């Protein structure tokens, strides 16, 4: 399959995409983030986790 060039989003754009998304996913391990182009680190229960949306 031909690889697609993912758009690089600014932090502001990422926050807007997450805000407009109904579904999110919490990823606890940073290594599992590779398949997501939009993610934001947040702190939940004292731990850094990543909020992602699937584009």
């Amino acid at each position, binding site marked *: 399959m031909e690889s697609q060039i993912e758009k*690089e*989003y*600014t*932090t*502001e754009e*990422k*926050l*807007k995409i*997450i*805000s*407009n*998304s*109904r*579904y*999110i*996913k*919490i990823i606890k391990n940073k290594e599992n983030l590779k398949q997501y182009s939009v993610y*934001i*680190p*947040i*702190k*939940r*229960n*004292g731990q850094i986790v990543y*909020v992602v949306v*699937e584009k």
Partner: protein
Amino acid sequence: MLFFYPNSIEIVSRRIYYDHSEGLLTRNVNEKIIFKNSSAKPLSEIILEIENFKTNLKIIGNDGNELIFLPNYKLRERADLPQSIDTSIKDPELKRNFLLIKLKRQIEGDEYYGLSLHYIEYTKEETDMIEPYERYFNPFELEHFMYNEAMYMDLIEFYDRETVTIFKHWGNGLSLSDGDPYILYAKISDTDSDDDIGELDKSKLSLDLRKNSFSFSITKNDRERFNINIMAIFYGIRPEKKELSLIKALTMFVLLLPLADLISFFLHNISYLFDALETESVFILTLAFAQTRTRLLSHEKYVKLGLILTGSFFMIVLILILANIKI
């Protein structure tokens, strides 16, 4: 920065009140916007950009009347718009939301006016790798024993010089998740780097955190001090721990009580069987009604499971007793 038009108005403040009194999954929002007509010319309409689409939006003016607002496509038909908004509206990629608000009466020069935006918002839903049926029947998936937290995210952008006040309220029986709220901000930048994002120090915000609410304000000075471009507030709302423990104990009773039917089978006594059914019904009803207070999300499935187990055990034992089968 959020767009507004005409430029002669000054948006002074915005107070956003989020009310979680209807449970975990939804909240009612009342956003009060105060602005001043800084020009000498009377004002009959304004255009405001809003952060995102607002469900069931209703706009009330200062005098209590509901105001008419027109969405993006009506704005596209206007020829008198400034270039910046014109381009934004015509480019669907930008996904910006504007409201053209028709005021009930003209706002005179130097007059202040308030608009109230009422709308509903829903929790963020978490997608999960685990299939629903696996979650349902996997006793080891304790994390999902009950969905007990609803997560919310608020994106706050700013109109020029305004002061934004956030106030969130939840009723008795609910509480804020540990360590929340988590407040992020993006700095003014065109690139994506780890330096563009920061956690807002709650102590510097004068966050007023109480049992049933939290609130804070952000002024233009604060934004300049922290270099805030856009802000995101993450928080979870969950039932109070004692309510959660109570409901978990009740659920265990509902799921285990059908086994009591076996006693009537061993004793071969049909009256015990009906007594057990009565007790199980009381527990199932209590669990079902507990939803109104605890507002747990995944409550319903345990009520259903309790009913299925109770009905099945009752029918099997009844048939065995009537068939006079003894062990």
